[in-house]
C-alpha cells in the first residue's frame, strides 16, 4: 500500500484490445491513433488503477480520462446492465466547464450512440449531469429524477451535494473520480477537495478509482499522494510530448540600458506590433491590471485605428460577462491580440494562439510554462513564447526562467497542511450527514494527505470551537455541532444547518473593492474615480500618495468601502500601485539566480570566458549574454554583488536610518526575515520600525538602528516565536483572520438568504478578533490565520533555512556603509515601506507628539 510508481506508456495494440468494437470504431473514425497521453492513461484507468497523469498543456488529457470509463459504460449499456447510479464524478476547479465537456464527453457519447444505432445495436442511454454554481434548480431536480451516470461538477458544488441524502444514495457505489487541473488546486481549495474526496470514498461501498489530470508540475510524487490520500497506491504517468518549447528573450533598443529609458519605450510598441503582425493570434501577459490597460492604450496611441476591434483586455477585475465575451471572440478568431494580467493563465480552451509574449517576469517556471502553453494548444503545434524585458534585473530573472524551462526544472509546488478553517467547514458538513463516532471521523480526516499529521489537539480544538465551547454566542457565533464527551459522538446542531452550510461553503476569500471618491477640491467632491483593492487600502495611511489610472491622488480617509482622496496632487506616489498584485518570485528560481550571480562573479575578470559561459549556461544568444555580463561588471565595480552564499547589508542615513539587505530569496522569505529583524530593532529601542520588501531584498528603517544587536537577536530557533509577536497587531493578520473566520463559518457571508457585504464582514471580524484574543490567544481559527501568514503568505520554512545557513557560516554577511542608497538598493528604496512593526505604546507616542507639537508652534 501507499506505493507511488512511475509507469511507461502502453502499446497502441494493448489499448485497442480493451476497447469495445463500437468505441474502437468510433475512436478511429475520429483520430488517426492514440495520443501519447492516451497510451499512458486509458488502459490503466480501465484496469482501475489510481493514476496521476501529468502532461504539458495541449495534450488530450480530458478524453484520456474519459475514454476508459466511456468504454466501460458503453459495454454495460449494450449488455443492458447499466444501473441507476452515478458511476463517475468529474471535478474541475474551472467554472466555465461546459464547452470542454461538450467536446470531450457529450459529443463522443452522441456519436457512439449514432454508430450503434446504425449497426442496429441497442444501447441504454448514458446520461451526463453538469452541476456548477450556475446550475438552475430545475436542472438539479432533473438530476434527482434521472440520475446521471457521469456527474460533472466543481469542488464546491460537490461538497454541497454531499450533504443531500438522496445524492448519497445515488453515489454510494461510485467507481471513478476524476480530478482535472489538479495543478491549480495546490491551495486551500485543494485541501478542501481532498477531504471531500475522502468523504466520497467513505460513503461509497466500492473504493472509487482516482484519476488526476495535471499540467507540468513538481514534485509529482507529492501531487500523487495529494490525489489518492493515505493508504492507497498511485501510478504516475509523466507524459513528455515531443513538442519543443520555442522560447526567446529580447529587449527593445540596441542595448538594455536604452530600453530602461522611457523615451525608448516607444520601441517596445514597435516590437509588439511587429510580433502581432507576424502571427495570427498573440497573447500578451503583463502581470498587472494597470499594465494591461496601459499596453492597450499605447498600442492604440502609436498605431491609431489599427487595433480597433481587434484587441481585447482580460483581467480579473473585469466582469464575468466581459471576460466571457473576450474568450468567445478569441475562440472564433476575431481578435488579433489579447492582453491579460494573469487571468488567462489557466483554464478553458481559448482557441489557437500562435505566440505568447511575456512582459515582465512570470516569477516562476511553472507559471511561465503554463503561460507559454497557451500557445499551440493544438496537439502538434509547438508552444512559442517570447520574453520581452525592460530592465536588467528582469533580464537576468527571465534568462534564468528560460534556462530552467529549457532544462525542464520546475519549481516545487506546496500544498498547505492541517488547515483548521477548512477542517471546521468540512466537519460541519460531515455532521450534517449523520452522527459520527469521533474516531471514525478522525480516521477519515487523516486519510487526506493534507491532514495526515493532524494532531489530536488541533482536532479537538476545532471540535470545541464548532460545539460552541469558546463562548462566542454573544458574538453571534453559534454552536454548529454537538459533541458528547461520554459517547464520543458528533452531530449537527440547528435546523438551518444544511442551508447555512450550502450558502456559505467555499474557500476562496471574498476580496472587497474600495471605491475611490474625491473629497477635495470641493468642486469635484463626491466624484468617484475608480476602484482599488482592499489590501491596497490597508497599506495606506493619511497623506500617502498613490496613482490610479495614471492620475495621482492623496489619501485622506476611508469610510466603509469608500476611500476619500484629494485630487490634483503633484508630489510623487509614496505607494507603488502594483503592490497588491505583485507575484512573489519562487524560492527555487531565486536561488538559481543567486547561483548564477556567483558563477559569473568567479569569471568576471575574463570577459570572453564569462560571456561564453553565460551563453551556454542559460542557452541564450550572444547579445543577451553580453548585456548580462556588462551589468554584472558594473555592479562589481561599484560594490560587492550578493549571491546565493553572500548577503550584503548596506546602511545609510536619509530622513532616518536604513539597513538594507541584498538577499535574493524571493519576497516570501524576505518578508519573514524583514519582519523578524524589524521586530528585533523595534524591541531594542522601543520605537516603531518600517519595513520594505521585494524579491531581491528588504530594508528596515527607523530613527536609530543597532544592526549588530539586531542581527544577533534573530536566531533560527527563535524565528517562530519572534514572528508570532511581530505580526500580532498587523493588518495582514487581521485580514487573514477575516478570511479564515469566513471559511470556518464564524462569519456567515449569507444567512437566511441575506448576503453580508465584505465591508460588514470586515467590521464584524474586527470585533471577533478582539473577542477571540481575549478568550484565548490560541483559538484554533486564530492559529490558522497565523499559519496562513507564516506558511502561505510568507515562507517561514525557507527563511529558517537561510538563518541556519547564516549561523553555520555557509551564507556570509557583509556589512557596508554607504553615503546614500546604492544603485542596486534603489528600486527597493523607492518602492517604499510595505508595513510597520509597532512597538512604541500610545501613551508614549502621545507625550512625544505633544512635545514636538509645542516645539513646532514655539518655533514659529
Amino acid at each position: 500500500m501507499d506505493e507511488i510508481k512511475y509507469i511507461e506508456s502502453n502499446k497502441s495494440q494493448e489499448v485497442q484490445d480493451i476497447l469495445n468494437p463500437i468505441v474502437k470504431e468510433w475512436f478511429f473514425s475520429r483520430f488517426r491513433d492514440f495520443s501519447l497521453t492516451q497510451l499512458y492513461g486509458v488502459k490503466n484507468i480501465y484496469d482501475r488503477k489510481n493514476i496521476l497523469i501529468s502532461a504539458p498543456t495541449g495534450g488530450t488529457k480530458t478524453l484520456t480520462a474519459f475514454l476508459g470509463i466511456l468504454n466501460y459504460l458503453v459495454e454495460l449499456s449494450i449488455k443492458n446492465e447499466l444501473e441507476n447510479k452515478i458511476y463517475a464524478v468529474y471535478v474541475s476547479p474551472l467554472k466555465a466547464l461546459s464547452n470542454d465537456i461538450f467536446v470531450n464527453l457529450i459529443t463522443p457519447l452522441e456519436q457512439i450512440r449514432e454508430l450503434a444505432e446504425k449497426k442496429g445495436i441497442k444501447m441504454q442511454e448514458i446520461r451526463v449531469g453538469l452541476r456548477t454554481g450556475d446550475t438552475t434548480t430545475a436542472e438539479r431536480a432533473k438530476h434527482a429524477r434521472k440520475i446521471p451516470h457521469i456527474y460533472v461538477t466543481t469542488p464546491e458544488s460537490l461538497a454541497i451535494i454531499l450533504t443531500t441524502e438522496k445524492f448519497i444514495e445515488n453515489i454510494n457505489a461510485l467507481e471513478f473520480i476524476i480530478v482535472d487541473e489538479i495543478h491549480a488546486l495546490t491551495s486551500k481549495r485543494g485541501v478542501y477537495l481532498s477531504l471531500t474526496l475522502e468523504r466520497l470514498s467513505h460513503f461509497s461501498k466500492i473504493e472509487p478509482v482516482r484519476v488526476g489530470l495535471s499540467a507540468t508540475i513538481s514534485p509529482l510524487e507529492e501531487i500523487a499522494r495529494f490525489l489518492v490520500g493515505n493508504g492507497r497506491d498511485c501510478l504516475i504517468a509523466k507524459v513528455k510530448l515531443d513538442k519543443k518549447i520555442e522560447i526567446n528573450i529580447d529587449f527593445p533598443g540596441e542595448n538594455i540600458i536604452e530600453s530602461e529609458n522611457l523615451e525608448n519605450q516607444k520601441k517596445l510598441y514597435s516590437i509588439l506590433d511587429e510580433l502581432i503582425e507576424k502571427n495570427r493570434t498573440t497573447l500578451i501577459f503583463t502581470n498587472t491590471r494597470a499594465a494591461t490597460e496601459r499596453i492597450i492604450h499605447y498600442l492604440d496611441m502609436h498605431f491609431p485605428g489599427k487595433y480597433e476591434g481587434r484587441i481585447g483586455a482580460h483581467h480579473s477585475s473585469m466582469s464575468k460577462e466581459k471576460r466571457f465575451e473576450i474568450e468567445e471572440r478569441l475562440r472564433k478568431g476575431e481578435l488579433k491580440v489579447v492582453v491579460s494580467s494573469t487571468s488567462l493563465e489557466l483554464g478553458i480552451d481559448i482557441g489557437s494562439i500562435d505566440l505568447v509574449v511575456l512582459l515582465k517576469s512570470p516569477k516562476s517556471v511553472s507559471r511561465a510554462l503554463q503561460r507559454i502553453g497557451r500557445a499551440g494548444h493544438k496537439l502538434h503545434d509547438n508552444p512559442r513564447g517570447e520574453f520581452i524585458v525592460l530592465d536588467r534585473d528582469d533580464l537576468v530573472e527571465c534568462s534564468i526562467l528560460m534556462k530552467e524551462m529549457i532544462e525542464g526544472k520546475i519549481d516545487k509546488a506546496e500544498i498547505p497542511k492541517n488547515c483548521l478553517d477548512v477542517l471546521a467547514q468540512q466537519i460541519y458538513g460531515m455532521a450534517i450527514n449523520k452522527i459520527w463516532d469521533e474516531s471514525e471521523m478522525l480516521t477519515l480526516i487523516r486519510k487526506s494527505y493534507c491532514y495526515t499529521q493532524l494532531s489530536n489537539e488541533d482536532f479537538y480544538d476545532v471540535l470545541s470551537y464548532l460545539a460552541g465551547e469558546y463562548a462566542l454566542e454573544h458574538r453571534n457565533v453559534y454552536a454548529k455541532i454537538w459533541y458528547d464527551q461520554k459517547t464520543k459522538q458528533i452531530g449537527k446542531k440547528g435546523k438551518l444547518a444544511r442551508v447555512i452550510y450550502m450558502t456559505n461553503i467555499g474557500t476562496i476569500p471574498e476580496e472587497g473593492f474600495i471605491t475611490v471618491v474625491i473629497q477635495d477640491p470641493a468642486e469635484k467632491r463626491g466624484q468617484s474615480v475608480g476602484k482599488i483593492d482592499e489590501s491596497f487600502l490597508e497599506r495606506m495611511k493619511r497623506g500617502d500618495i498613490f496613482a490610479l489610472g495614471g492620475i495621482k491622488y492623496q489619501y485622506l480617509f476611508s469610510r466603509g468601502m469608500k476611500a476619500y482622496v484629494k485630487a490634483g496632487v503633484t508630489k510623487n506616489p509614496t505607494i507603488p500601485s502594483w503592490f497588491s498584485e505583485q507575484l512573489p518570485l519562487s524560492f527555487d528560481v531565486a536561488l538559481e539566480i543567486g547561483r548564477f550571480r556567483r558563477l559569473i562573479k568567479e569569471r568576471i575578470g575574463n570577459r570572453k570566458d564569462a560571456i561564453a559561459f553565460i551563453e551556454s549556461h542559460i542557452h541564450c544568444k550572444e547579445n543577451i549574454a553580453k548585456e548580462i555580463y556588462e551589468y554584472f561588471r558594473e555592479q562589481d565595480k561599484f560594490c560587492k554583488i550578493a549571491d546565493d552564499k553572500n548577503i550584503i547589508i548596506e546602511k545609510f542615513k536619509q530622513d532616518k536610518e536604513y539597513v538594507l539587505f541584498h538577499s535574493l530569496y524571493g519576497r516570501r522569505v524576505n518578508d519573514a526575515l524583514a519582519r523578524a529583524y524589524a521586530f528585533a530593532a523595534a524591541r531594542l529601542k522601543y520605537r516603531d520600525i518600517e519595513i520594505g520588501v521585494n524579491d531581491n531584498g528588504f530594508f528596515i528603517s527607523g530613527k536609530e538602528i543597532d544592526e549588530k544587536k539586531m542581527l544577533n537577536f534573530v536566531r533560527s530557533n527563535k524565528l517562530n516565536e519572534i514572528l508570532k509577536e511581530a505580526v500580532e497587531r498587523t493588518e495582514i493578520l487581521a485580514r487573514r483572520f477575516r478570511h479564515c473566520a469566513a471559511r470556518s463559518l464564524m462569519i456567515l457571508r449569507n444567512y437566511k438568504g441575506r448576503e453580508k457585504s465584505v465591508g460588514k464582514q470586515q467590521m464584524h471580524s474586527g470585533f471577533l478578533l478582539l473577542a477571540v484574543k481575549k478568550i484565548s490567544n490560541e483559538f484554533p481559527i486564530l492559529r490558522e490565520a497565523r499559519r496562513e501568514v507564516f506558511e502561505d503568505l510568507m515562507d517561514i520554512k525557507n527563511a529558517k533555512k537561510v538563518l541556519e545557513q547564516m549561523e553555520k557560516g555557509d551564507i556570509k554577511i557583509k556589512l557596508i556603509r554607504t553615503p546614500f542608497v546604492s544603485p542596486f538598493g534603489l528600486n527597493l528604496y523607492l518602492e517604499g515601506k510595505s508595513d510597520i512593526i509597532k512597538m512604541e505604546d500610545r501613551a508614549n507616542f502621545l507625550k512625544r507628539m505633544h512635545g514636538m507639537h509645542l516645539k513646532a508652534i514655539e518655533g514659529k
Partner: protein
Amino acid sequence: MKIKYIGKSILIEKEGERILVIGDLHIGYEEAGNFSSGIINNSIYIQIKKDLEGILKKVKKKSEKINKIILLGDIKHGFSDMEKSERFEIINFLDSLKKKCEELIITRGNHDNFLSNVINKEKIKLVDYYIFKDICFLHGDRDFADINDKKIKYWIMGHVHPCITLQDDNKSEKYKCFLEGKFKDKNIIILPSFCDKGGIDIREREARYPWKLKINEFNVKIISDEDEIFDFGKLKKIN
C-alpha cells in the same frame, strides 16, 4: 466653576454641586449591521461599564457624593429593533447609574427616539437640553431657542465623537479628544464619545452641528489614561 478631565468624561464643580458629564454611549453599536442582535453583554458594553466604574471610583474617592450625572445622549445604537432582554439591560444599566447620584439626566440625542418608552420617567429625567445656572448641557444635533439666552455662558455637548490622528514619519495613532472653543457669546466644550467605537478624525469631515462652529479655531485636548491633559492648542495648527 471648576472642570476636571477624567478619562473621556468631565466633572464640573460649581457652587457646591458636583456634576459628572458623559458623552455618547452607543451601546450595542457592534451589533448594528449584524444579522441578529443578541443580548448586549458584549465587549463594548462590558468596556463601557468598566470605564464608568473606574471614573466613579476616581470621582468618589474622597467619599464625596455626585449630585448629578448627565448623559449627553445617543445611549443605544439602533434602538428600533431592541429585544426584551436588551431593554432589560438598558434599564438595569441606567438604574445602576441612578444609584450613584442624586439625579440622572439624559439629554436626548438623534439615536434616542425610543428611549422614552424604556426608561422610568420618575427616576430619570429625559430632556432635550438641561440648564444648570449658566451651563447648558445638550446632545448637539438640534438648536433650541432657550439655549441662546444671554445668561447662558457654556454649552457642553457630544454628538460628533471627536478624534484626532497624530502622526510622525512612521507612526500614526488616533486619540479621542475634547474640543473647546467659542461660538458667539458661548463657551463650547465638546466631549468625545464614551464608547470604544472608533471616532472620525475631526479634520476629515464637517462637524454636523446646526450652528456654524469654527472648529478649526477650537482647542484640542487629549486626556491620557492617567488623566494628564495634553493641550494641543488650535486644531488648525496641528498637521
